[in-house]
């Protein structure tokens, strides 16, 4: 029955030739496991296309909603899995593409007549990296935002065209809505269209010239792709796909907070496959930066592109092509070493962002004073503070905590007045409490935090947060004891007549003075 249907279709469309093209491809004898990597790449690209297409069902490419929509996607098991497959699939593709390229170089498969197959493959690799870069911005979290800031600034280093290129990538005058829609369009429309064309060309060329086969010609007749080689391909593809599912099942790396251009505590780090480049930049400070960012990658890319013309001899055995083999090995070692160094070179303060800052602890008291819970409660008009969506920009939040009436008119009585510093502390508190429950701090620390967040933070820095008019106080306890600090805060001019710091003796209660002096003295 099905056979007769296919016969009918074949008579009108020639459909059976598809099978011949796909499965009856003659392979040189000795073709084996090394030649499965192309199929792995093809399968992974297929999974990216499918999961990506389905992710667009829920994703919204606007700064106001991108973060929320990604969080929404991650709120179901299926969503987490689909996003996980797409996320880790990107890494898998980079690895598979690199291995495929190393196989081609090792077997000398780029030699005539396959120069164009080689070039199209290299083009596809470039596109894969462009996919990785553009896709990275889409969740619009801190990591995404800052990685994009760095990418666009690197592109500015390009000679002559740098500013134009950066402008094209940015879309608008700053990274924002226009950047996001631009990168989204590139990621889901333009890049896929080009990739499909290049991959099609790559496959047509491969099929036309046949695969290169083992380095030394084996004896015997050529074999068909189906079923022996197909089975090898399918076996490796299955192992890779199972590994991908396992990774996706075990979970995504957590989303950072929403993109916040004003947040100085966040330390951006690129995805692992760009860590090597990231590390390279550290060795070229100042004006030399362009060497690490543009010149070295361009030269390497050009060398790879010219490989078929640099290595002209007919010899394919890597042991007899010493220059190429050694060069590529050095390159691989360099990339692995740079990536490892970049991986290990984690700034120590990266962890500090996860702990409660004094500002956030202080903000909790201001939240209680401002009666936020009148609306932000389980039975109230708005979600409890622990569950609010912090997807809004800092200006909106500052405006809302300073005057909720402005954001939600008519919904409540006019709010208690909140100062600018209290507003900043409230924002810090809500940002923290939506990530983790309030752990509880001893009363003196809370009191000190209230004082810190309302007064000290205007001029002093602790753990990277605060104003810069006064000295940094992160380790003040190693210089002064509690009594000295308390006296200083009560009346700074008594100790140093020309100081700019105002006296707090009359503004703070005795308990507040004790608490803040004690807290600072403990900062050693």
């Amino acid at each position, binding site marked *: 029955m099905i056979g007769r249907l296919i016969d009918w279709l074949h008579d009108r469309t020639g459909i059976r030739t598809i099978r011949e093209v796909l499965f009856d491809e003659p392979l040189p004898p000795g073709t084996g496991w090394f030649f499965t990597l192309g199929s792995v790449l093809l*399968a992974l690209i297929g*999974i990216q296309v499918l999961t990506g297409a389905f992710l667009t069902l829920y994703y919204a490419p606007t700064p106001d909603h991108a973060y929320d929509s990604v969080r929404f996607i991650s709120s179901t098991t299926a969503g987490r899995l689909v996003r996980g497959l797409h996320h880790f699939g990107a890494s898998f593709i980079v690895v598979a593409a690199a291995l495929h390229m190393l196989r081609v170089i090792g077997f000398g498969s780029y030699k005539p007549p396959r120069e164009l197959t080689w070039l199209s493959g290299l083009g596809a690799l470039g596109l894969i990296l462009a996919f990785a870069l553009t896709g990275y911005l889409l969740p619009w979290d801190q990591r995404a935002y800052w990685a994009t800031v760095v990418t666009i600034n690197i592109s500015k280093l390009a000679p002559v065209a740098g500013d134009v290129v950066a402008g094209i990538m940015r879309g608008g005058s700053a990274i924002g809505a226009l950047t996001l829609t631009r990168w989204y369009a590139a990621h889901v429309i333009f890049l896929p269209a080009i990739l499909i064309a290049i991959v099609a060309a790559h496959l047509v060329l491969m099929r036309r010239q046949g695969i290169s086969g083992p380095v030394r010609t084996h004896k015997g007749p050529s074999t068909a792709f189906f079923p022996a080689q197909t089975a090898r391909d399918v076996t490796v593809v299955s192992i890779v796909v199972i590994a991908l599912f396992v990774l996706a099942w075990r979970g995504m790396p957590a989303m950072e907070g929403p993109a916040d251009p004003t947040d100085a505590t966040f330390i951006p780090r690129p995805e692992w496959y760009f860590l090597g480049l990231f590390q390279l930049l550290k060795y070229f400070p100042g004006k030399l930066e362009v060497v690490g960012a543009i010149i070295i990658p361009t030269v390497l890319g050009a060398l790879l592109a010219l490989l078929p013309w640099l290595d002209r001899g007919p010899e394919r055995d890597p042991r007899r092509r010493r220059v190429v083999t050694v060069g590529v090995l050095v390159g691989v070692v360099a990339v692995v070493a740079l990536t490892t160094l970049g991986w290990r070179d984690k700034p120590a303060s990266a962890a500090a962002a996860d702990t409660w800052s004094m500002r956030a602890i202080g903000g909790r008291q201001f939240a209680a004073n401002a009666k936020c819970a009148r609306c932000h409660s389980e039975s109230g008009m*708005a979600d409890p503070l622990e569950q609010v969506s912090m997807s809004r920009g800092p200006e909106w939040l500052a405006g809302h905590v300073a005057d909720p009436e402005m954001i939600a008119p008519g919904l409540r009585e006019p709010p208690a007045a909140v100062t600018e510093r209290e507003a900043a502390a409230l924002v810090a508190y809500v940002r923290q409490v939506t990530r983790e429950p309030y752990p509880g701090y001893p009363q003196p620390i809370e009191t000190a935090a209230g004082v810190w967040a309302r007064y000290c933070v205007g001029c002093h820095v602790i753990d990277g947060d605060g104003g810069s008019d006064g000295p940094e106080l992160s380790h003040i306890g190693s210089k002064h004891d509690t009594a000295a600090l308390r006296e200083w805060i009560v009346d700074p001019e008594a100790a140093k007549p020309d100081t700019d710091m105002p006296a707090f003796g009359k503004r703070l209660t005795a308990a507040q003075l004790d608490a803040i002096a004690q807290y600072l003295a403990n900062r050693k």
Partner: protein
Amino acid sequence: MSHPVDSSVSPGRRRALVLLVNGAVAAIGGALSALLGVFALKPAAAASRDRWIRAGALSDLEPSVPAVRVLVVPRIDGWYRARAPQTVFLVWDGKKDVRAVSATCTHLGCQVHWDGKDHKFRCPCHGGVYDPSGKVLEGPPPRPLDSLDARIDSADDTVLVRL
């Protein structure tokens, strides 16, 4: 092009290989299809919940005369937090009781208006007519206007409606 039969593969081995290829492709394809199907068809349920919304002061109402109020209702729509305006009529009995009636016609969802002269709700779309309590008098509506929970907050004499 003829079908070159791979002579290096015995018939039994060939059958096993075909089984392996078909099985693996079916397993991967099946798993992906199932996952993407669930993902597409079952998004996270919207977590909207009913809230008591302040609908105005009792002193603004006349006994037994439906008064129209547009209430702004926070709605969670997937990833989007909307403030959806919703029209309700408040009907006060002149004493301790207030009823709230949805303005959405039960026929096809148009918004009814209050005809003060005839003392009836009229739907502008297909001629549905309701009495002040929401009961159908004429036209195609299949059931009375939906009534909503309403109460008077005795602390400040305002009307609360649950939406």
